[in-house]
């Protein structure tokens, strides 16, 4: 049952909120894919109590206009919810309870939705396999030996395994789209600035964007209509109005649609053959439906990952400085002096991947290297952005694979020990199709477009023009309608 159907049934009195949420709570308890992070004691009782009071409000006629009233939802473990644990899946924040709500939490509650729990992620969103989580990796519902992807691995896996109908994710370089592709679900990173970041633990402020993961495009649209919209608490959240479900054309036609295909993206060495075939087939689906397909050469491809990596590490190194063992979170028991409180708490509280990226961030911002790395990366960003501006004068959407490979084997990145050269290339190239979208602030959605020989899902990425999110969702829906259930878990 889709999220929209659940809500319709609840509003029609055919389903109780409690009955909708109970399977989710059971899944949380069982945690088969390690998709959920720990909750406080008495959690289940509290959620059930909330379900009851929500039921009363729905029965009293509240939330009639809310498309998702009564629907259970999971939050990535970087979203602050009052009196609940929010850890970023880091030892650094174990036991930390927020004293305020993220803006999107308020919006979700105002829409009559019910938050079930927090979802596992790579530590502070730094990672693409979910293996850097303090709580351990999330397994892929399609294959237990495979990762769910990251950083929003728990969000994608929980939706794919039908443990929850909807999940919030966040995307800095592909962290919603990549796990969605790996797990065979729909994940959208909307235009930068359309969903408030207030209360969401920052990784890289100018790249981070909160988005939605769902089992189909319509549910994804509905969730985005709930969480999007201007926020006075986030200077960078600029959309004047939330996405409107009514203006998303659910019966959009692909006929006449101008579709760009970056040819060189499909010629990348690391691109899996089966993914290439699958995406090529998806392009044909667009063509058959009347879309005008045009190939082009994506310039600056070799600069995308360096620019993304430099900017994200630089901002992250500064954003993570607040985790210092002084005001909240982990403080080393060994620390006696102030200097030890700082250094030991941070060394023991952060995992290796986070430490590595903080060091890189410190490096590219340090005196003597700023101009050669950080400033250059910002200039590369400008060039990449300008290039997209030109492309969207010509195209309605751009199609690419979401990832060059399907879900990795667990522990393939050897996160705690030395990264093998292959590991580094693999890991960085993993973001090749997704990261430029964040650099330019564009909306992009990953929709399932097939499976490989091992039955692992493949994702098609559809990139739209900035602030054309509603149009993008309509196109994704049209593709989904035509392609049907190519990959249903």
């Amino acid at each position, binding site marked *: 049952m889709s999220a929209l159907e659940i809500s319709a049934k609840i509003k029609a009195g055919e389903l109780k909120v409690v009955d909708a949420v109970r399977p989710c709570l059971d899944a949380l308890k069982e945690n088969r894919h390690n998709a959920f992070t720990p909750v406080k004691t008495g959690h289940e009782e509290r959620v059930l109590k909330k379900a009851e009071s929500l039921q009363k409000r729905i029965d009293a006629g509240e939330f009639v206009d809310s498309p998702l009233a009564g629907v259970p939802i999971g939050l990535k473990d970087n979203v602050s919810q009052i009196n609940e644990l929010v850890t970023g899946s880091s030892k650094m924040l174990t*036991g930390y*309870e927020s*004293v305020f709500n993220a803006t999107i939490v308020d919006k979700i509650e105002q829409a009559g939705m019910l938050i079930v729990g927090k979802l596992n992620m790579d530590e502070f969103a730094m990672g693409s396999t979910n293996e850097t989580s303090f709580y351990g990796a999330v397994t892929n519902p399609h294959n237990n030996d495979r990762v769910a992807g990251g950083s929003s691995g728990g969000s994608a896996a929980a939706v794919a395994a039908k443990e929850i109908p909807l999940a919030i994710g966040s995307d800095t370089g592909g962290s919603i789209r990549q796990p969605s592709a790996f797990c065979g679900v729909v994940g959208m990173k909307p235009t*930068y*600035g359309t969903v408030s970041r207030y209360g969401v633990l920052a990784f890289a402020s*100018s*790249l981070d964007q909160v988005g939605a993961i769902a089992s189909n495009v319509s549910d994804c649209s509905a969730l985005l209509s709930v969480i999007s919209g201007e926020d006075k608490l986030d*200077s*960078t959240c*600029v959309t004047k109005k939330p996405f409107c479900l009514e203006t998303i054309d659910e019966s959009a036609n692909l006929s006449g649609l101008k579709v760009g295909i970056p040819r060189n993206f499909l010629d990348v060495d690391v691109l899996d053959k089966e993914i290439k075939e699958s995406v090529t087939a998806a392009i044909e689906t667009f063509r058959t439906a009347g879309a005008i397909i045009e190939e082009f050469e994506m310039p600056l491809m070799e*600069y995308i*990952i*360096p*620019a993304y*990596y*430099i900017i994200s590490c630089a901002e992250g*190194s500064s954003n993570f400085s607040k985790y*210092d*063992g*002084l*005001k*909240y*979170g*982990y*403080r080393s028991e060994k620390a*006696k002096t*102030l200097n*030890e*409180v700082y*250094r030991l708490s*941070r*060394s023991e509280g952060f995992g*290796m991947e986070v*430490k*590595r990226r*903080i*060091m*890189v*961030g*410190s*490096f590219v911002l*340090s005196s003597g290297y700023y101009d*050669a*790395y950080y*400033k*250059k990366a*910002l*200039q*590369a960003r*400008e*060039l990449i*952005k300008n290039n997209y501006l030109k492309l969207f004068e010509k195209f309605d959407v751009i199609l690419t694979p979401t990832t060059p490979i399907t879900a990795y084997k667990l522990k393939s990145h050897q996160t705690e*020990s030395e*990264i093998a*050269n292959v590991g*580094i290339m693999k890991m960085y190239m993993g973001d090749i199709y997704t990261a430029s979208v964040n*650099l*330019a*602030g564009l909306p992009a959605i990953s929709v399932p477009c097939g499976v490989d020989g091992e039955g692992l899902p493949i994702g098609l990425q559809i990139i739209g023009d*900035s602030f054309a999110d509603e149009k993008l969702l309509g196109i994704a829906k049209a593709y989904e309608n035509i392609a049907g259930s190519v990959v249903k878990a």
Partner: protein
Amino acid sequence: MKFNHELVSYLEDLSCLALSEDEKATLQSDLEKILNHIQIIDKLDTEGVIPRSHPFDNVNAFREDVVVSSFDRELILKNAPEKNDEMFIVPKTVE
């Protein structure tokens, strides 16, 4: 580019970390590889290109100068590893 031990120690200081010798050795090698990969950026011709810090060109997000009630001190101190009724506590700072 070579990442020597000294540079790793310097970055350790800047990042406010205390790394073991093993970790340092690992990081030295990792960082060298990462840097070798990303330093291609220096080859990009960026003559006259304005550095972009934000995805969009929006400006001027302001708040009016109106007082909003502050939080209860208890809540602010709630998660502190060490505190008393009024303040956060840390080992003595030296000036």
